[in-house]
C-alpha cells in the first residue's frame, strides 16, 4: 500500500504559492491497478513523481514499504554523453545488482527488448526520441517492482513496439500494481480497476474504474 497523508505540493510564484495538490490524504491499495484521471495540468504527473520519490511534497508525508518504479518509459534519466549500455549499467548498479553476470543478464535483456541494434553502444544523445523511449521502457521492464508508475507511456514508440509494451505489461498484471496517469479513457478502462480523479488540488478515489470515468466525464 502507498499512503499519502496531508500531502501538499506548491510552487512559489510571484503571486504567492501556486498549489498543485492541497492536503491530499489517500490510500492506494496493493494489487488494485489505479488510474489517475485529470485534465492537462491537473497534477497527475506531479502526483506520480511524488509517489515515485523523485519529487518531494511541500508538506505532508508519503509512505510505503513497497518497491516503486520510476515513471515507466521515462526518458529524462539518461546521460547523453554515455552509451545506452552505460546508462543501463548505472541503473542496474543503483538498484543493487552488483555481480558481473547479473548485470550482463540485465543488459542483454535491455538490449534485446529495446531493439535499437548497434545504437545500444552509441551515446544516448545520438538517439531519436523513439529510440530513447524504447530504451526507457526496456529498462523499466528489466526490474521487478511492486508498483509501476506509468505516465502516458502507451503512446510511445511505433505500433509494433507499443504492442510489445502492452504484452509485457499484461504479463506483469497479476504480480504487480500499476498506477497509470492518462487522459486516454479507453486504455485506462482496459488496464485499471480503480480510479482517482485529480482536480483542483484534490484527489478523489473511486473503488470502481467505470464509476471514476463516469464522474470524470460528467465534470
Amino acid at each position, binding site marked *: 500500500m502507498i499512503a499519502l497523508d496531508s500531502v501538499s505540493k506548491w510552487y512559489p510564484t510571484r503571486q504567492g504559492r501556486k498549489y498543485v495538490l492541497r492536503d491530499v490524504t489517500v490510500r492506494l491499495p496493493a494489487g488494485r491497478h489505479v488510474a489517475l484521471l485529470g485534465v492537462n495540468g491537473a497534477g497527475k504527473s506531479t502526483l506520480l513523481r511524488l509517489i515515485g520519490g523523485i519529487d518531494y511534497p511541500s508538506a505532508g508525508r508519503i509512505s510505503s514499504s513497497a518497491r516503486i518504479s520510476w515513471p515507466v518509459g521515462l526518458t529524462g534519466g*539518461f546521460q547523453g*554523453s554515455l552509451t545506452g549500455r552505460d546508462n543501463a549499467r548505472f541503473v542496474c548498479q543503483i538498484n543493487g545488482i552488483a555481480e558481473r553476470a547479473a548485470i550482463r543478464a540485465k543488459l542483454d535483456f535491455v538490449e534485446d527488448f529495446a531493439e535499437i541494434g548497434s545504437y545500444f553502444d552509441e551515446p544516448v544523445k545520438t538517439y531519436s526520441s523513439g529510440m530513447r523511449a524504447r530504451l526507457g521502457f526496456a529498462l523499466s521492464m528489466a526490474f521487478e517492482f511492486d508498483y509501476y508508475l506509468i505516465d502516458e507511456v502507451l503512446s510511445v514508440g511505433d505500433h509494433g513496439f507499443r504492442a510489445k509494451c502492452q504484452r509485457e505489461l499484461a504479463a506483469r498484471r497479476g504480480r504487480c500494481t500499476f498506477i497509470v496517469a492518462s487522459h486516454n479513457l479507453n486504455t485506462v478502462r482496459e488496464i485499471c480497476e480503480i480510479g482517482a480523479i485529480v482536480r483542483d488540488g484534490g484527489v478523489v478515489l473511486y473503488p470502481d474504474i467505470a464509476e471514476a470515468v463516469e464522474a470524470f466525464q460528467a465534470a
Partner: protein
Amino acid sequence: MRVLHALLLRELKTRFGIYRLGMVWAFVEPLTHVIVLSVIFGIRSRTAPGGVEFPIFLATGIIPFVLFRATVTRAMSTIEANRALYTYAQVKPFDTLLARFILEVIIYTVVFLVFMVGAGWAGFDVAVQDPLVVFVVFLGLGLFGLGFGALACVLNDALPDVAQIVPILLRPLYFISGIFFSVEVIPVEYRGWLLWNPVLHALEIIRGHYFRAIETHYGDPLYLAVWTFGFLSFGLLTFHVYRTRMVAT
C-alpha cells in the same frame, strides 16, 4: 554505498570522456601553469625561498589550488549536472555531491604524485619532508572547497545571477593565495591583509612540510581548520536543508 560506487564510475566516464582525454587535461592545466610561470620567473635561474627549485615550489602551490577550485566548481554544479539522475529515487543529492568530491580528490592526488615522480625523474629535487601533513592539508583544502561549493550550489539554485560571483571570486584568488610567492616576500604592512585568506595558509603549511628548507611562520593550521570546518558544516547543512527544494521541479 552502491549508489556512490555507481555514481563514481559514472562521473569517471563522463569526466574523462570516451577517449579518456579528461585525464590528460587534468595534467595539462597545472603543468602549463608551472611551465609558463617558471618561464616568466626565469627557469631555474631564480630559486624560490630556501633555495627550492621554482617549478617544484610552483607545483606545490598550483596543484592544491586547482583541487580547491575544482571541488568548489564541481560541487557548485552538482545539482544542475545531475538533475537527470534524481529521476531514480535511489540517487540522493548528497550522493552526487560526495561522488564529485571524492573523484576530484583522487584525480588531483594522482596528478600531484605523477607530477612529482616525473619531475624527480627529470632531475629535480622533489624530496618530501612530511607527506602525511602535506596530504592532510591537501585534503583539508578539498573539504574547504566542498563546503564552499555546497553553499554555492544552493545559491546557484536560488539566485543563479548572484551565484555568477563565485567563479569571478575564484579568479583573483589565484594571485593572492601564494601560488608563486611565499608570505615572506610580501612587505610586512600587507602581510596581515593577505593572511585573511585561508587558501594562503593552506599553501604555506603544505610548503612548510613539503620542503625541508622552508619553514613557515605564517601558515596557521588552526586558522585553516576553523575556516574549513566552518564552511564544511555550514555548507553541508545548508545543502541538506535545501536539497529537496533544489531537486524539486
